C-alpha cells in the first residue's frame, strides 16, 4: 500500500516536472494547455506529445469562443479564403494570417453528381478535393498549424517522418516560413513524391525500410542530441499539427451551408485525420454553428494495410499492427497510432471501417477521374473504392448526403494508373492514319 502511494506520488511529481520543463508563456490563441486523451493529466503548452503517466497521446485543450453563433459564423465568413478563417478555433495566434505561410485550405467541395449516378447514390454526394492545396495534399493544413507551434517554441529546423505528401508539405512550408528542413521518408516512394519533397531545397533522407521504420527512427532521433532543437511536426509537435485536420470538418460544414453531412468517408493512415474531423464536427455542434444531428463516420483502408478495418470487423478494440504491402503508400502505416480511437468513433457514430484491394483502388481512381475530372492519388482511390463497397454491402445509405475525401493529387502517384492510361493510339500526322485508328 505504502509502495503504491509512493509510486503515485512519484508519478505526480514527474508529471509536474514534465510540465515545468515546457514553455509557459507561448501565444497559441485559444489553446490553454495539453491534456492526455487516455488519463486526462494536464500539461502546459509545449513541444511534448506523450503523457508521462501512461504514454497516451496529448491533445490541445481550448477556451473556445462563447456567445452568439451568428456573430461567430459572420466573423468566419468574413475571414480569408484559407484555414485562418477558423483561427479562433485553432492553436494559433490571433495575427496568424499576417505571418508567412502557404495559407492552405478552403479547397473545393465538389458536387459529384456524375459519380453519384455511377455509384448508385440517390442523395447528394460530394468530394472534398484537397488536392487543391499548395503542395497538392491535405498535409498543408496540418503543417501550417505545426509551423505556428514551431515558431512559438523557438525551433529553427522542421522535420517529420513521412509517406511522401508530408515531406513535400514540410519542405514547402519551411521554405516559405524561413525554417531549415530535414525530412525522412521510406527510400522506395513514388518518384512524384520524392521530387516534390526535394525541390524545396531542404534535406530529404531516404530510410531503408517502410514507414513504420522511418517513424521509429524519428522517435529515437528526437530523444538524441542529434535531433535537439528540431520541431518534428508529427512527433513533438503532433498535438498541434493534428488540429489542422479539424479545418476539413469546418470547411465541409460551412460549404454545406453550415450543416453537418449525414455520412463522411475518410482515409485512415495513422487515423489522426479521422479523429480530428470528428473533433471538429463536435466543436461546431458545441458552439452552435451547426444544428446537432446524427452523422456517421466511415474509415477507408487499403487491404494491404488494413489493421484498423481488420480490428473493426473482428469486433476488437485494439489494433494489431501489420506489415504494409499496398500501392496506397500514403496510407501504409502498419501500426496506426490513433487506430483505437478510430474504432471508437466509427462505432459511436454507427459508421464502419472497410478496405479495398489494389485493383479496386486503381478502378476507383479511374471512376473518379472519368466521372468528375478529379485525378486522385491512391488514397483518394481508397476512399472512393470503399464508398462503392460500402454502398454495395449496404453499410452506407445512398439516399443521404455523403462527403468523400480526396486527400491528394494523382500526379504524385502516376505509377498506379500509368500502365493503361497512356496514349490511345500513336499515328502519323495524317487523316488517313487517324481514320485507320477508328477514333473519329
Amino acid at each position, binding site marked *: 500500500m505504502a509502495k503504491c502511494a509512493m509510486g503515485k506520488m512519484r508519478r505526480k511529481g514527474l508529471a509536474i516536472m514534465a510540465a515545468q520543463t515546457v514553455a509557459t508563456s507561448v501565444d497559441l490563441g485559444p489553446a490553454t494547455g495539453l491534456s492526455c486523451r487516455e488519463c486526462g493529466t494536464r500539461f502546459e503548452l509545449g513541444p511534448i506529445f506523450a503523457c508521462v503517466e*501512461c504514454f497516451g497521446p496529448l491533445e490541445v485543450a481550448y477556451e473556445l469562443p462563447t456567445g452568439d453563433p451568428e456573430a461567430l459564423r459572420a466573423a468566419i465568413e468574413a475571414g480569408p479564403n484559407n484555414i485562418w478563417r477558423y483561427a479562433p478555433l485553432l492553436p494559433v495566434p490571433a495575427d496568424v494570417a499576417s505571418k508567412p505561410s502557404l495559407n492552405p485550405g478552403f479547397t473545393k467541395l465538389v458536387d459529384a453528381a456524375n459519380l453519384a449516378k455511377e455509384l448508385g447514390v440517390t442523395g447528394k454526394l460530394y468530394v472534398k478535393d484537397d488536392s487543391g492545396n499548395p503542395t497538392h495534399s491535405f498535409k498543408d493544413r496540418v503543417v501550417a498549424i505545426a509551423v505556428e507551434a514551431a515558431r512559438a517554441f523557438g525551433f529553427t529546423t522542421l522535420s517529420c517522418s513521412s*509517406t511522401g505528401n508530408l515531406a513535400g508539405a514540410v519542405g514547402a512550408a519551411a521554405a516559405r516560413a524561413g525554417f531549415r528542413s530535414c525530412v525522412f521518408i521510406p527510400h522506395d516512394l513514388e518518384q512524384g513524391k520524392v521530387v516534390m519533397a526535394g525541390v524545396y531545397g531542404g534535406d530529404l533522407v531516404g530510410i531503408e525500410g517502410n514507414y513504420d521504420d522511418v517513424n521509429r527512427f*524519428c522517435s529515437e532521433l528526437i*530523444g538524441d542530441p542529434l535531433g535537439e532543437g528540431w520541431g518534428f511536426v508529427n512527433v513533438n509537435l503532433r498535438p498541434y499539427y493534428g488540429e489542422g485536420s479539424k479545418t476539413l470538418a469546418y470547411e465541409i460544414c460551412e460549404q454545406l451551408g453550415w450543416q453537418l453531412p449525414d455520412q463522411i468517408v475518410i482515409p485512415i493512415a495513422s487515423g489522426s485525420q479521422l479523429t480530428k474531423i470528428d473533433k471538429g464536427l463536435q466543436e461546431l455542434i458545441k458552439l452552435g454553428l451547426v444544428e446537432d444531428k446524427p452523422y456517421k463516420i466511415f474509415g477507408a483502408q487499403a487491404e494491404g494495410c488494413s489493421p484498423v478495418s481488420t480490428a473493426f470487423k473482428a469486433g476488437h478494440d485494439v489494433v494489431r499492427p501489420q506489415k504494409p504491402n499496398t500501392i496506397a503508400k500514403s496510407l501504409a502505416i502498419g*501500426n496506426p497510432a490513433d487506430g483505437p480511437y478510430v474504432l471508437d468513433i466509427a462505432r459511436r457514430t454507427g459508421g464502419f471501417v472497410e478496405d479495398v484491394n489494389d485493383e479496386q483502388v486503381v478502378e476507383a481512381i479511374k471512376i473518379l477521374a472519368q466521372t468528375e475530372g478529379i485525378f486522385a492519388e491512391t488514397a483518394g482511390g481508397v476512399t472512393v473504392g470503399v464508398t462503392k463497397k460500402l454502398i454495395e454491402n449496404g453499410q452506407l445509405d445512398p439516399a443521404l448526403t455523403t462527403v468523400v475525401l480526396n486527400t491528394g493529387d494523382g500526379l504524385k502517384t502516376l505509377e498506379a494508373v500509368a500502365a493503361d492510361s497512356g496514349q490511345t493510339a500513336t499515328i502519323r500526322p495524317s487523316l488517313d492514319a487517324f481514320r485507320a485508328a477508328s477514333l473519329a
Partner: protein
Amino acid sequence: MSVNVRIPTILRTYTGGQAEVPAEGATLAEVIESLEKNHPGIAARVLDDQGKLRRFVNVYVNDDDVRFEGGLEAVTPDGAGVSIIPAVAGGC
C-alpha cells in the same frame, strides 16, 4: 544475456537522465524486471495494471517490433539493442 535499452525522454527521470542503460534478461519480460531493479518505478510506466505492455508503448528488439515477436516473451539475444518508444508518433 546483457542488452542495452534505449530510454525515451519521458522515462529518463527514472534513469538519472541516461538515454541508454544496460539490463539483463533472455526475454523482454526479464529485461523489464532487470530495469525495475536498477530504476525502480520504470516498469509501471511501461506495463499496465495487468502486467501487459501499455497500449501506447512500442518496444523493439534490434529492428523487430516485439508485437510480432511474442510481446513480453520476445527473445532478447546477448548484446541486443532494446528500444522503448512512445507509440503516439507519426502519420496524420
